[in-house]
């Protein structure tokens, strides 16, 4: 018998963690023997971060036909999920905080069990792709031995607790949220009060109110550092979330004293577990509870719940040593032979000056290598990737990772660099990068040289070319268009020429579908993957979402402006940014510019890019970025009769889009009730269009359209999407209450979002209908 990781690491893994992994391994075994129910097994593995991946139903369209992947016959690991199909392993990284030792191990497991890539997610986690489920217990053990867990990385639980990557070193923070966020993460991990949620629960901590690093208000619970009478506490917001219909969190309490923070989170967890929706997944996030109860009533329930909680020492124990997690090398290596810079040895400049963090001083660490001349590209890198810390003499440098990906070799090199030049830890960021904190300023040339050698010195971090993207069609089962492909294409196009100053700091974020994992709503320019039918073929598109603003922990969400064929997206973005550079008013933000110019005008400028050339003219439009397979699911014939009906439906769908668009214009003018009314009409037009697909006799009366829609499309399952179900149909069916004067802004915006989704669903439904017709002919 060969050695096993289990015995090798036996005494390096904390007892409860080790047991959990053993239990999971046993569950795998039981599932194999058919003794564990599919659904139960599926949720168990999700709670350990073991996620499905594209093609795991064992089918894949290879560009010519759908092939059944010849996996061995085995039990399933979930509904329609083949055991042997590779999956994704999400690794929970609270606060994005990683030590050098942890990076080494992650590099090892990425190399041994995955494809050699560690991927940073938009919530500061790491993911490995193409992992076989049989390898996951050992993978988890190796991580556990260095204090990393995958527990509750997925599933209906408290997900990764995130925080500003600069917490503790940021110039703007009220105080360092690190110990609070960390305590919260580990207090809630596996907490019995957090095991019975209807849906996931996301928490973020922000060190300041105005920043855009932590995105607190798109979380189920967002905590923002604040002080009152010299006391530390948090402004707490509840019920935010992205997804199909984004929602800004509501203010629950302006000041929760630090000692009350953990009991509050616990109380919220209990209320959510008790009252949150359980049956209907689509309405199970906390945001729906906030909507249905109102924040006032929810606050009252939470206060009541807090009163009956039994005291727990963990609520406050950590407050006694708030410095426990400091990565300040000055405290970590008091007797180090290296002389860390002290404020009197180093830069005495104003710490709030962020303009030029590096001065031509000699290496304070006394390392002769630091005196070598700076490597090529140093200045540009320094200007874009380095910020001064609150602590004089120290800077934080961003390692820009393309699409959040880092290979095992460079990850090990980064671990080595973190050991040698910083306080040993790094943080991942929501922009899918990694920051090295506590770099002595004088070591910057040395740092840059070593990063260059490892291929990690790409400049332009956190600029428009540093595009954020969800996994999209590459690995996600739900992806509609290639978010990663388009993200790279955008970066390449924009990097090809010098960018105006106003354009550089803009952010682009891409999601492969409406689930919004790429956080497209909060970008200056967001992209949302959709598909369109053109002459019977599918064409990948992206909705361009404009007007989002991540400042103030998310001030506003963007709205869809136009659906652009994927292949035209880089050109469209270039056009938009050129427009912005030329026509913006002094100091105007992108969101404000779009608002002033009006979406109509902006859309008008993109008009020529919205058209899709015929397949014969330009077949490249019919495949996606980075994927030469033809982007289609059926080969459709063109019957004349079908052709005519198609035209009527398509015409109707286009009319629906125009109406939705007008609704947005009304919304922007502040005519909220009218906007919601017009949005509802848009849905009616889309429903009517669909009904036309198999009948020319379609009513014009709203009630009749809705009735017909229900009986002919919904009850028959025609509108049923294989992935989404009939979720979006509900937007049309429920009372709309529009037209009234008192329509709240947020409600109206929600209606606009829903309308867009309904129209998307109608497009998808229409595609299925046409495909079906083609097959029948």
């Amino acid at each position: 018998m060969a050695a096993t990781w289990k015995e090798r690491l036996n005494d390096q893994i904390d007892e409860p963690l080790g047991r959990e992994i053993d239990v999971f391994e046993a569950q795998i075994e039981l599932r194999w023997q058919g003794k564990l129910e599919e659904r139960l097994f599926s949720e168990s593995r999700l709670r350990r971060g073991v996620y499905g991946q594209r093609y795991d139903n064992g089918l894949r369209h290879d560009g010519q036909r759908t092939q059944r992947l010849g996996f061995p016959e085995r039990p399933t690991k979930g509904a329609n999920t083949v055991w042997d199909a590779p999956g994704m392993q999400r690794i929970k990284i609270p606060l994005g905080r990683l030590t050098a030792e942890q990076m080494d191990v992650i590099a090892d497991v990425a190399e041994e069990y995955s494809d050699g890539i560690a991927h940073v997610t938009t919530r500061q986690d790491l993911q490995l792709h193409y992992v076989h489920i049989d390898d996951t217990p050992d993978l988890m053990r190796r991580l556990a031995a260095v204090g990393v867990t995958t527990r509750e990385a997925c599933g209906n639980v408290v997900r990764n607790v995130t925080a500003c990557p600069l917490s503790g070193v940021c110039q703007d923070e009220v105080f360092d949220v690190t110990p609070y966020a960390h305590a919260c993460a580990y207090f809630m991990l596996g907490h019995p009060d957090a095991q019975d949620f209807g849906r996931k629960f996301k928490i973020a901590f922000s060190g300041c109110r105005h920043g855009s690093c932590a995105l607190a208000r798109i979380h189920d619970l967002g905590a923002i550092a604040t002080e009152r009478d010299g006391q530390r506490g948090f402004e707490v917001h509840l019920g935010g979330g992205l997804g199909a219909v984004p929602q800004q969190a509501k203010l629950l309490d302006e000041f929760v004293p630090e000692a009350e923070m953990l009991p509050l989170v616990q109380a919220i967890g209990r209320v959510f577990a008790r009252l949150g929706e359980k049956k209907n997944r689509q309405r199970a996030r906390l945001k729906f509870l906030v909507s249905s109860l109102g924040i006032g009533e929810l606050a009252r329930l939470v206060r009541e719940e807090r009163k009956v909680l039994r005291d727990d020492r963990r609520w406050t124990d950590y407050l006694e040593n708030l410095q426990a997690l400091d990565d300040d090398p000055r405290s970590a290596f008091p007797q180090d032979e290296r002389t860390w810079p002290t404020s009197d040895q180093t830069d005495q400049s104003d710490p709030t000056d962020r303009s030029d963090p590096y001065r031509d001083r000699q290496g304070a660490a006394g390392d002769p290598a630091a005196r070598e001349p700076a490597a090529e590209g140093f200045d540009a890198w320094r200007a874009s990737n380095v910020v001064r810390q609150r602590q004089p003499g120290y800077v934080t440098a961003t390692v820009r990772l393309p699409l959040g990906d880092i290979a095992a070799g460079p990850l090990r090199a980064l671990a080595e660099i973190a050991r040698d030049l910083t306080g040993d830890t790094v943080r991942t960021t929501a922009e899918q990068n990694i920051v090295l904190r506590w770099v002595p300023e004088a070591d910057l040339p040395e740092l840059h040289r070593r990063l260059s050698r490892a291929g990690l010195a790409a400049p332009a971090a956190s600029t428009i070319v540093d595009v954020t993207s969800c996994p999209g069609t590459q690995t996600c089962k739900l992806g509609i268009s290639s978010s990663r492909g388009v993200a790279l294409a955008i970066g390449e196009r924009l990097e090809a020429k010098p960018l105006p100053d106003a354009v550089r700091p803009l952010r682009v974020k891409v999601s492969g579908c409406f689930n919004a994992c790429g956080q497209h709503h909060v970008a200056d320019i967001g992209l949302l993957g959709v598909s369109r039918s053109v002459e019977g073929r599918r064409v990948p598109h992206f909705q361009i979402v404009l007007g989002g603003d991540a400042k103030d922990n998310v001030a506003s969400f963007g709205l869809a402006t136009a659906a652009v064929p994927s292949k035209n997206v880089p050109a469209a973005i270039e056009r938009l940014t050129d427009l912005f550079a030329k026509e913006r008013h002094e100091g105007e933000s992108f969101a404000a510019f779009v608002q002033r110019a009006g979406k109509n005008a902006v859309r008008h400028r993109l008009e020529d890019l919205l058209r899709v050339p015929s397949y014969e003219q330009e077949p490249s439009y019919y495949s996606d970025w980075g994927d030469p397979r033809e982007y289609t699911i059926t080969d459709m014939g063109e019957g004349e009769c079908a052709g005519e009906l198609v035209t009527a439906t398509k015409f109707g769908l286009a009319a629906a889009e125009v109406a939705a668009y007008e609704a947005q214009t009304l919304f922007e003018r502040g005519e909220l009730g009218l906007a919601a009314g017009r949005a509802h009409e848009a849905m009616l037009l889309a429903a009517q269009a669909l009904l036309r697909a198999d009948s020319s006799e379609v009513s014009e009366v709203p009630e009749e359209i809705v009735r017909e829609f229900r009986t002919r499309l919904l009850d028959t399952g025609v509108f049923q999407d294989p992935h989404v179900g009939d979720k979006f149909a509900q937007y049309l069916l429920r009372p709309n209450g529009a037209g009234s004067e008192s329509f709240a802004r947020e409600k109206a915006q929600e209606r606009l979002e829903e309308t867009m989704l309904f129209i998307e669903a109608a497009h998808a439904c229409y595609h299925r209908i046409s495909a079906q017709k083609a097959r029948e002919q």
Partner: protein
Amino acid sequence: MTSTLENDALFAQRLAVRLSADPTCGAIAVGSVVAAFHRLIQARGLDEVMIDVADYSHVPDGPGIVLVCHGANYSLTLRGQRPGLLYQRKRPNEGDFAARLDRAVRATVRAARALQDDPELRGKLRFVETEIEVGANDRLLAPCTAETLTELRPALTTVAERLWPGGVELDFQADARAAFRVRLKRGARPITEIPCKP
């Protein structure tokens, strides 16, 4: 149960084989390789359950373009310091170490040929035919140490002799962090000419 460390390397399953590519392949467009891998899937051109193509050519020092299969991954790197085709076994295989390694080498060579035969890559993709790197991605059973090399030497020799009868050179460097790798070299016979049928 404690195990004797002595023969553990022979249990290693995640074997790796690497053929170096000629540096001129740096001129090949990434898209051509991605397309070639997709064509292989369409034609079911390898004896594998072929799943998908993952393009990591944007990642410095990364795996390049990966053909993900159930049993193994094949990744082709065009640029960077070490262009080449890397085979990495993922699922366990039958037979003793030498047999498994032999099969891994053959699979790699077959994939190399299939790529060289691709209409878009023909005449452009060349592999260095006088050496091959083999190893294991298993830091538990086969750490990159002299002991592992000692354990595996007989099996490595068997496989190498089959490639180049008449003697091989062996190049190895221990490395506490890296996965076990050893380079086998010989001048005479092109690797892609060795018989593939097991």
